[in-house]
């Protein structure tokens, strides 16, 4: 036994001398958390909901980026694009971009990417393909896409959503392979990073020193390696942040950041409240198909009754902002369509007396004297508000919503089913009230918000739209489609005005607050973090889908100490 142990030790010592363990240079490596929650298993841009964060954005790149802070569509793989007629857009690509295996990137790749859904029918952008009647590479660096409908706002959104795929690698792959491959062997893009290694709890991206943007745009990403760390709980992230040098950027929700910020030199976008940039509007969904939520007066009363500021102060320690009446994120792309006069005339604010008045005038009375209102037909009203169990900030938020409703006599209770049950009920219209913000994230156009709120439900199950099942959705659809179909900004504004007026008159959903882009930077090793008014003003988002909003550009501005 003892002899075996000695032999084992000698063996390992021998190897220890021979085998060398590389350690990444601290000031060349950026450690990031928030975007990865399990072992990386997928690097396939055709499965964007599954692929490891960074696949889309760091490795595979779209034609444009969207600067979510300054509301700018930045030409990226494309050099420029324009509408040659109502239905046709022409995209001119940059020359000199190479895939990481040395092949040239050109119009063939773009045409291939947009035509792929013809062969691979279940790919995620199939319906976009259905709106295209023709995609052709006019010459080596020019692509023409002809649509079968007008869709200017939506197209600008798609320009930064779809990563370009290399034709010379993907053309020979079968449909089955494309949809079920992990793509580990073929993770070849035009982007700033390459797949280096991964483990059960981390993903390591290494810098592509032949990245096209170095020569063509004079841009360089500062970290040689970006290590995305799986941190399974907030206490781990906080602990790592407080130790000083273990973690650089966290996109996790960290309650307590305002309190420990000073003590541990933690950086946030704003120095004071709200600390975080607004990222997605969290709405209180009311099931419009259930009585009495089918009554606009009842819904409006709820809008007046909810104390949004209390949620902001008590639940989020002021790390979020209360939503405006329309639920428009305070980003330029949306706010330029915000009509103050309509909001002033038809909108609402926190006013308990007004809420009670509306309910009274609409015929809701407390018939049996229990302190709670009954329906117009005398039926008892007792509602449940649901959010997924474990989402503690939302859990506390709906407790406050329930409390607000009680002060005007509406009986409501906060409930926390497991996520799958919550989502099944929400999508099947099997709920009273619930919180959600999945489709209200920051984009280049409020078209995405209205599409998410009012799109048509097919087959009875609303996976990704219209959870509230608003009765007049068809009217809203006409309006936001018209908005999408016009390039004329004045015309567009008219449609917006109509949308906003109807929204405020009927209040199908109640916007509560803006979920923040949780961002904490550690000044221990890297500096020049994104900040309001600072030198680095890029959206510090390291989630899948967030790199193209500013996360990638942020990396070009960071500086190692």
């Amino acid at each position: 036994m003892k002899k075996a142990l000695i032999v084992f030790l000698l063996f390992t010592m021998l190897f220890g001398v021979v085998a060398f363990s590389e350690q990444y240079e601290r000031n060349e490596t950026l450690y990031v958390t928030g975007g990865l929650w399990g072992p990386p298993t997928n690097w396939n841009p055709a499965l964007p909901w599954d692929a490891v964060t960074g696949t889309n954005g760091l490795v595979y790149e779209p034609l444009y980026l969207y600067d979510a802070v300054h509301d700018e569509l930045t030409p990226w793989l494309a050099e420029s694009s324009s509408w040659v007629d109502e239905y046709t857009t022409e995209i001119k690509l940059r020359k000199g971009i190479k895939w990481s295996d040395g092949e040239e990137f050109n119009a063939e790749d773009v045409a291939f990417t947009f035509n792929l859904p013809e062969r691979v029918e279940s790919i995620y952008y199939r319906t976009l393909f259905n709106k295209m009647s023709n995609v052709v590479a006019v010459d080596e660096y020019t692509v023409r896409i002809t649509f079968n409908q007008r869709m200017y706002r939506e197209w600008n959104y798609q320009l930064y959503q779809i990563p370009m795929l290399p034709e010379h690698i993907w053309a020979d792959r079968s449909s089955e392979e494309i949809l079920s491959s992990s793509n580990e062997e073929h993770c070849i893009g035009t982007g700033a990073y390459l797949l280096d290694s991964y483990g059960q709890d981390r993903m390591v991206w290494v810098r592509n020193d032949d990245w096209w943007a170095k020569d063509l745009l004079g841009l360089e990403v500062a970290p040689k390696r970006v290590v995305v760390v799986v941190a399974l709980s907030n206490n781990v992230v906080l602990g790592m942040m407080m130790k000083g040098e273990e973690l650089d950027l966290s996109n996790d929700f960290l309650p307590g950041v305002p309190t420990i910020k000073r003590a541990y030199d933690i950086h946030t976008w704003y120095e004071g409240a709200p600390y975080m940039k607004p990222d997605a509007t969290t709405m209180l969904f009311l099931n419009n198909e259930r009585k009495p939520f089918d009554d606009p007066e009842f819904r409006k009363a709820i809008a007046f009754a909810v104390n949004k500021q209390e949620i902001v102060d008590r639940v989020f320690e002021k790390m979020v902002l209360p939503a405006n009446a329309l639920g428009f994120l305070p980003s330029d792309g949306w706010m330029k369509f915000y009509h103050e006069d309509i909001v002033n005339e038809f909108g609402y604010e926190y006013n308990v007396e007004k809420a009670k008045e509306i309910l009274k005038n609409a015929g809701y009375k407390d018939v049996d004297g229990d302190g709670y209102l009954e329906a117009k037909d005398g039926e008892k009203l007792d509602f449940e508000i649901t959010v997924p169990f474990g989402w503690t900030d939302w859990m506390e938020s709906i407790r406050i919503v329930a409390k607000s409703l009680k002060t005007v006599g509406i009986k409501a209770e906060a409930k926390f089913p497991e996520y799958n049950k919550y989502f099944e009920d929400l999508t099947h219209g099997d709920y009273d009230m619930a919180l959600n913000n999945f489709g209200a994230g920051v984009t280049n156009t409020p078209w995405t918000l209205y599409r998410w709120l009012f799109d048509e439900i097919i087959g009875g199950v609303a996976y990704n739209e219209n959870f509230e099942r608003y009765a007049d959705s068809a009217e809203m659809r006409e309006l936001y489609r018209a908005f999408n179909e016009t390039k004329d900004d004045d015309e567009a504004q008219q449609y917006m005005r109509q949308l906003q007026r109807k929204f405020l008159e009927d209040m199908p959903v109640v916007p509560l607050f803006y979920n923040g882009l949780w961002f904490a930077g550690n000044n221990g090793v890297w500096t020049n973090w994104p900040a309001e008014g600072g030198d680095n003003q890029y959206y510090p988002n390291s989630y899948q889908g967030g790199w193209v909003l500013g996360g990638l550009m942020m990396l070009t501005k960071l500086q190692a100490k």
Partner: protein
Amino acid sequence: MGKYLRRKILIYLITFFVAVTLDWFIPRMMPGNPIDSILARVAKMPSQEQVQILRSHLMKSFGMDVPIFEQYINFWGAMFKGDLGVSINYFPKPVTEIIKDALPFDLLLTVPALLLSWVIGNKFGAFAARKKRMDNWVLPIWYIISAMPYLWLGILLSWTLGVNMDLFPVAGAYSFSREPSFSWEFIIDYLHHWVLPFLSLFIVQLGGWAIGMRNMIIYELEADYSRYMETMGMPQKLIRRYAYKNAILPQVTGLAIQVGLLVTGALTTEIVFSYPGIGYLLNQAILRQDYFLVQGCFLFIIIGVLLANFAIDIIYVFIDPRVRHSVGGDGA
């Protein structure tokens, strides 16, 4: 002996069949559908026609588009071929690979913690059973530590030794700045990350075993045969040895049962230390109804527990003469 074995094996096979069937059945009875929650993550795709196309594709690729009884048959067929399916959560990684990659991290934590705490706990417990004065103050300590939740002790250790005193790292199985390699530096780095999670398991379990052993020894030392040996003037050491052999039996049972459950991982410890084990993956699989990962993990758990029970039955034949006689006496 043969008849004893045959009967045991038959019972275990039936138990296995029923347990695996239940394990297959229960996640599918939960409300909600894993495909739907994948579809929710496709949130950026602005159209639900799209979602419908994708939904039918996913249902087909996970074999969920056939009637439920057929899915059950397919499951058994695949299992005997060693194919535990592909995980829904961690698509397209096969379940066997997920378990293979995650389990070693857990085992290297839980196995030493269990074995060391058992050995040291037993010795310590037996010692305290004899020394009355030490027993007075050490027993309350054991009660306290065995009542500590793993989670609580983990956070306490992480905070004091990890964050405040900066002696140990607080996350991961090995440094995020290294790749695994067969080198001295890596092994030291791994051990450095290993200490705190190990301690959070070891300390709590130690208390349990020590208390159990202490109680058993005291009981044995007061038994008739011990008293008899004492009056006969036998050396203390011999009496203690006999008592120890009797007292260890229930501890062995306890150990075997714990060994069977090692395959579940150490969920709360993994969460506190962000340790990449199977416990967290299994937990997420249950919550998000990743049918295949749940089935695969529970298959191992069922096998582990049954094997452990079977092992106890066999071991007892050898270490407990009473069992040996009854088994032998039943007729070969």
